[in-house]
């Protein structure tokens, strides 16, 4: 049976960003009906029983998270949408925000109804001014029509939606870093507990969900659990938006059921490896996932199956590397990213990611020793799991998996003092040599 898009439906039509364009496709009808016919408890149960897992990277069950809200709280409950998509290789949320903003707002209304929130904040990356404009225009249109604000669709439900903007900090994609930033502060992640569901934004109960997750609530309410579980496999149900970049013929966006094998996804939806080349490796869901070698591409793209090959689904942001790619340079690029984006709160991360980047820089650009190869892994093991948030853990994963799966390439760099690849754009000419020295 051919897969029918539900999340990127209409995204190729520029008119879809307008209220009229969206409503022509039946948009806003799910919320209109559900607000009148379904209780909040029914929607929470529906989403819980569907087994929907968060699409922001961690894969935590969404409905279960909603049930963590304290009962009988006298404080307001907030919904905070994490639109701070900044995991390298991930661009699905930006695509969805810029092309299907009303689906997000419809999902926000349904979610607010379910969790009893009257106010939702959408926290967008500072680097998304375009998505911010498009979403604000969508909010204005939906408010003017009575789909947002007070007495939505003539019911007693109030949902105000406000935008907030970051200003360039990966750490604000971490949910408690995002809350701090939403409160107008430095985006330092908080210690947990208390978890945001108990004490989140302004110390009030707060549910934080990713853009794609909240969008997925709409087709679940519309089509039900049987439809949802007709896609994917046990504990990994539902639709998924993939964003693929790097060395494929047609980089971009596609939607399928969860659990499609990586090679099928790449070959059928993205034109396969770029012409005249062959696959070498890929990361399946942003740079915080373990690397997969090309002989692991038969693995199913879901939260559980990828663990078997030492990786994880993450965001579904796939980066594909062909044989011209220098793996040590890839690792250096990502490690410099973590060093730059470490918020500095915890010493193991602040110092460790910077040291790791410096060691990798000498491995890649000459001056490294064989001892450095062990040292950088020892360092990664030293900062992994020792910090407030998961940034350090995320930085440790590529270091361990790249060195484990491509040890020869690192050793060659040390022995020759340079890259043995002399083809392609990625040859280690140090083309980013003017990056500052990190921390």
């Amino acid at each position, binding site marked *: 049976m051919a897969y029918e898009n539900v999340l990127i439906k209409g995204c190729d039509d520029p008119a879809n960003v307008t209220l009229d364009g969206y409503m022509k496709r039946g948009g806003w009808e799910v919320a209109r009906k559900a607000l009148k016919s379904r209780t909040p408890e029914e929607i929470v149960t529906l989403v819980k029983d569907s087994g929907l897992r968060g699409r922001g990277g961690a894969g935590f069950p969404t409905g279960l998270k909603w049930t963590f809200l304290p009962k009988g709280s006298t404080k307001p409950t907030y919904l905070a949408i994490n639109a701070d998509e900044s*995991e390298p290789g991930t661009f699905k949320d930006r695509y969805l925000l810029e092309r299907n903003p009303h689906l997000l707002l419809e999902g926000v209304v349904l979610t607010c109804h379910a969790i009893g929130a009257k106010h939702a904040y959408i926290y967008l990356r500072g680097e998304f*001014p375009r998505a911010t404009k498009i979403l604000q225009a969508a909010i204005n249109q939906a408010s003017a029509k009575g789909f947002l604000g007070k007495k939505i669709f003539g019911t007693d439900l109030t949902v105000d939606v406000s935008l907030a903007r970051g200003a360039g*900090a990966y750490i604000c994609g971490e949910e408690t870093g995002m809350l701090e930033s939403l*409160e107008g502060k430095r*985006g330092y992640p908080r210690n947990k507990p208390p978890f945001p569901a108990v004490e989140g934004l302004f110390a009030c109960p707060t549910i934080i969900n990713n853009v794609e997750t909240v969008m997925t609530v709409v087709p679940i309410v519309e089509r039900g659990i049987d439809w949802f579980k007709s896609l994917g496999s046990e504990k990994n149900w539902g639709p998924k938006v993939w*964003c693929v*970049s790097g060395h494929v013929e047609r980089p971009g966006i596609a939607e399928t059921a969860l659990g499609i094998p990586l090679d099928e996804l790449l070959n059928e939806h993205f034109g396969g490896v770029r012409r005249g080349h062959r696959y070498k490796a890929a990361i399946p869901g942003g740079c915080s996932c373990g690397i997969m070698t090309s002989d692991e591409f038969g693995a199913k793209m879901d939260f559980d199956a990828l663990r078997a090959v030492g990786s994880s689904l993450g965001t579904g942001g796939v980066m594909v590397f062909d044989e011209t790619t220098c793996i040590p340079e*890839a690792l250096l690029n990502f490690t410099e990213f973590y060093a730059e984006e470490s918020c500095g709160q915890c010493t193991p991360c602040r110092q460790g990611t910077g040291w790791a980047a410096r060691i990798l820089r000498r491995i890649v650009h000459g001056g490294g020793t064989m001892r450095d190869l062990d040292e950088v892994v020892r360092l990664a093991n030293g900062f992994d799991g020792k910090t407030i948030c998961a940034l350090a853990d995320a930085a440790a994963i590529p270091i361990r998996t790249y060195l484990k799966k491509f040890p020869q390439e690192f050793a060659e760099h040390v022995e020759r003092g340079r890259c043995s690849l002399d083809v392609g754009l990625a040859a280690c000419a140090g*083309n980013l040599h*003017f990056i500052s020295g990190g921390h």
Partner: protein
Amino acid sequence: MYGKDFEDELERVESRFPPERKRAALLLALHAVQRVKGFVPDEAVHWLAQRYDTSPADVQGVVSFYTMFHDRHPGRHVIWLCRTFSCQLLGAGAVMEAFAGALSCEPLGQDAKGEFGLRWMECLAACDKAPCALVDDDMYETLTPDSVSLVLDHVRKGGGGGRIVVEGGKPKLVPLDVPAPAGDSAVPRLGGR
């Protein structure tokens, strides 16, 4: 401070938060300051600290935490070129060098007139359109070293973003396929000049 548009904008963004939590609007206020001045001058730090009943050090701490806030003028238009791996794979380094060449400045530098500043940005979430850059509010995609002067001219004429395509062996700038609506800010982007 900075005129009626600016103060209206501040009240508008502050109204998104509970009255006793007005300070939550600080990042949005700093974005508004930068639209006017191009960076966050000390006078704005002190003024906002007073407005939100906090210390200038607290406000300055927020300015220094976020990459997109500047404590000195970075150039009228900041070219944020993505340096993360999909863009690097497809030649971001060479594009940075080409911008620097076209502006007669160092990579990550600023031209002599202060018109453009060059910066690296971490993943701009347009990896399928690598290499890409954010300039003011606009995305420029699938950049090549020989297309940088097209981008500079486009920005000088008001910008709006675009994608580089090659036609007949020559680079051409075409508009993005989803047009952006008018700005969400009431403050005109003056950039301090």
